[in-house]
C-alpha cells in the first residue's frame, strides 16, 4: 500500500465524481427525495379511509356514535346509506374501504350487551384497512353496559402521537446508505474494467487493493454526508428526536457504511459490466428493504424470512439506529447488532479477496 498512489486514486475519483453531474445529483437527490416521500407520502398510519354509514336504527345515540367515530380522523364518512345492497356496491367498486353498520335493534343491543351492537364491514383486500378496523373495534361505545371492559387502552411508547416519520427516518438512513453505497461502489469499480482503463492499470505497479481502497474511500465520506443530510432534514421537517449519543450514532453509521461498501466490492468482483453491477446491487437491495423490518414489522414475518433477514446488514443497522435514536440506547447494549455488521464486513471482503486478480484472464 503506497500512500502517494492511494491519494492519487482518491483524487482522481473525486475529480471524476465532480464531472459526473448525474451521480453527484443522485448522491444529494436520493436522500432528500426519499425523506420527503417516506416522511410525507408513505404514511403507514392509517388516516381518512373512505367509509360509508348504514344506520338502520337512527337514534340519538347511534348518531352520536357515528359522529364520534367520524371525528377520530381514521374515517372519512362520505356516504350515508339506506340499504345493505348500496353498501356492497360501493365496497365492490372500491369507492369505500369500510362501512359502519348499525342494526335496527342498536339500542337494545347496547343495553343487553349480548350481541355486537356495531358491525364494521371491511374491504379485506387491503391489509392496512384491516388493521385500521381492528383499531376501530376498540372504540368505546356510548352507554353500552360493561363498556369499561371494551375500552382498551393502547399504550404507545417512543412514539405516543403515532407519527410515522419518527419510525421511518432512522430506518431511512440505512435504506439510503444501502442503495448508494452498494450500487455506486459496485458501478465505480466495474466501470474501470468496462471502459478498458483496467488493461492499462494492470501494467502499472499499482496493486488491485490500492485501487479498490482508493475508489471506496470517497464513498465513506459520501455516506457520512448522506446520513447527515437525512438526520438534519429529519430534525427540521419532522422533529425526529435523537435520544442517544450523536457520537455513537455516527459510529454505528460508519460501521454500516463499511458493511455496505464491502458488499459493493463483492458485487463488483462478480459483475462483468456496469449494467450487471447495477442489477446485482438491486438484487441485494430488495430483500434488505423488504425483510429488514423497514417496510414490515420484523416480528410479523415467518421464521424463515427472519433467519434470512439476520444475514442482511440493514436488519442489524435498523436495530442500532432505532435503538440509539428513539430509545436512547448505548452501543454497548446493542453489541450483537454491531458485531453482526463487523462480521458481515469481514466475510464480504474475504470473499472479494479470493476473486480479485491482477490479470485479464
Amino acid at each position, binding site marked *: 500500500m*503506497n500512500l*502517494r*498512489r492511494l*491519494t*492519487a*486514486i482518491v*483524487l*482522481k475519483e473525486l*475529480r*471524476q465524481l465532480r*464531472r*459526473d453531474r448525474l451521480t453527484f445529483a443522485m448522491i444529494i437527490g436520493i436522500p432528500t427525495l426519499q425523506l420527503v416521500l417516506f416522511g410525507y407520502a408513505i404514511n403507514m398510519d392509517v388516516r381518512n379511509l373512505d367509509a360509508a354509514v348504514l344506520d338502520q336504527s337512527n337514534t340519538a345515540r347511534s348518531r352520536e356514535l357515528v359522529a364520534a367515530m367520524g371525528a377520530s380522523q381514521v374515517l372519512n364518512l362520505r356516504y350515508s346509506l339506506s340499504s345493505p345492497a348500496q353498501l356492497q356496491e360501493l365496497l365492490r367498486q372500491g369507492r369505500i374501504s369500510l362501512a359502519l353498520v348499525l342494526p335496527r335493534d342498536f339500542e337494545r343491543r347496547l343495553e343487553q350487551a349480548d350481541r355486537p351492537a356495531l358491525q364494521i364491514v371491511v374491504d379485506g383486500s387491503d391489509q392496512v384497512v384491516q388493521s385500521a378496523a381492528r383499531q376501530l373495534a376498540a372504540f368505546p361505545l356510548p352507554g353500552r353496559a360493561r363498556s369499561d371492559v371494551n375500552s382498551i387502552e393502547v399504550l404507545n411508547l417512543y412514539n405516543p402521537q403515532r407519527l410515522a416519520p419518527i419510525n421511518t427516518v432512522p430506518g431511512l438512513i440505512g435504506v439510503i446508505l444501502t442503495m448508494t453505497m452498494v450500487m455506486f461502489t459496485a458501478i465505480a469499480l466495474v466501470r474501470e474494467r468496462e*471502459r*478498458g*482503463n*483496467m*488493461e*492499462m*492499470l*494492470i*501494467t*502499472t*505497479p*499499482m496493486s488491485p487493493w490500492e485501487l479498490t481502497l482508493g475508489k471506496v474511500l470517497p464513498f465513506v465520506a459520501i455516506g457520512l454526508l448522506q446520513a447527515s443530510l437525512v438526520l438534519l432534514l429529519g430534525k427540521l421537517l419532522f422533529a425526529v428526536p435523537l435520544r442517544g449519543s450523536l457520537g455513537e450514532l455516527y459510529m454505528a453509521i460508519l460501521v454500516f457504511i463499511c458493511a455496505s461498501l464491502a458488499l459493493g466490492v463483492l458485487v463488483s468482483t462478480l459483475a462483468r459490466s456496469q449494467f450487471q453491477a447495477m442489477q446485482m446491487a438491486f438484487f441485494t437491495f430488495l430483500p434488505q428493504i423488504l425483510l429488514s423490518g423497514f417496510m414490515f414489522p420484523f416480528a410479523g414475518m415467518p421464521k424463515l424470512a427472519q433467519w434470512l433477514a439476520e444475514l442482511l446488514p440493514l436488519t442489524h443497522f435498523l436495530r442500532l439506529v432505532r435503538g440509539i435514536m428513539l430509545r436512547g440506547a448505548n452501543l454497548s447494549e446493542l453489541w450483537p447488532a454491531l458485531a453482526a455488521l463487523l462480521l458481515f464486513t469481514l466475510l464480504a471482503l474475504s470473499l472479494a479477496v479470493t476473486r480479485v486478480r491482477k*490479470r*485479464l*484472464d
Partner: protein
Amino acid sequence: MPGNDLVIRAEGLSKRFGELLAVDQLNLSVRRAEVFGFLGPNGCGKSTTIRMLCGLLLPSAGRIEVLGSQIPRDAEALKRRIGYMTQKFSLYEDLSISENLEFLAAIQGLDRRQARLRIDELLQRYWLGDRRKQLAGTLSGGQKQRLALAGAVLHKPDLLLLDEPTSAVDPQSRREFWDSLFELADAGTTLLVSTHYMDEAERCTRLGILDRGRLVADGSPSELMANLPGHPLLVECHQPRLAQQALQSLSGVLALTQVGNALRVLMASTAGEPTEQIAAHLKTAGISARITAAAANLEDVFVSVTQRPLHATQPTADHPA
C-alpha cells in the same frame, strides 16, 4: 554477449481460450532498440501475444523472458520497466490531459517534482502543451494517441509494447506518431508494435508476420522482400479485366490486382517459369500482353507466406485510415 542484447525471448509460447488456439508455439526474439513490427490481420493473435508479454494474460504453454526476467513469475517487478499502450484508448476521458498524466505519474511512483518536470517535457514533445486543461474525451484521435503514448512512456520504460496504436488515426497523424516511435528507439527504448498497415510495417527495423497464431515469417522488411517466396509480375494489355478473369483459373496465382491499365500478378515460387506460364495461358484466352517483373512489396510477402490476402480477412470498415 549477444544473449544479453535480447529484450524479449519467447519460446514455444501458446495461448488457448477454450477451443480456440489463439497463439500456437510462437518463438520470438527482439533485440535492444529494435522497432519490431507484428504484422497480421485481426484475430491472428497479435494482441494476445502482446498481452502475454506484458503479464496481462497467463500463457497456456511456453517460456517468456523479458528484460532478463521471467514472466509471469517476475511480472510485478517488470511493470516498472515496461510501457504498454492499449489498442483502445484506456486513459480517463473525464479527466484532463494533465490530470491523466499526474495520476499516472503518481501510480508509477514518480515524486511530485519529478512528475511535474517529466509531464512538462512530454506535453512539449507530443504537442499537447496548449491543451493541458482539455478533457481527454474531447481530443481528436491523433491527440488521444499522443496522450496515450505520453502516458505509456512517462516512467521511461526500457520496453514499450504498442497494440495497433494507430488504428483510429488519420494518415498524417500516423506518420507523425511513427516519427515519435523512432525518437524513442533512438534513445534506446525497444519497441514492439502490432499493425495491419503495410506502410507502417515497412518502417519497422524487423517484422514478424503472424497468421492464425503462428509466426510465419521473421526478418527485416528488405530481407523479407528480397527472399520473397514468389514472383510479382506486371501484365500490361488492352483488356486487364479480361486478363484477370482468365488468370483466375491458372494454378500458382496467389494474387491479382488491377493497377491502372495493368494487372499485377503474384505467382507462387513453386510455379516453374511464371512469365511463360502466364503468357501461354493468356494466349489461349486470346489476349496478347507484355509481361515484366515488378518490385516486391510487403503485401506480396504477406500473401506468399500466408497463402491468403491480408485485407480480405480484415474488415476495413472497422479501422478507417
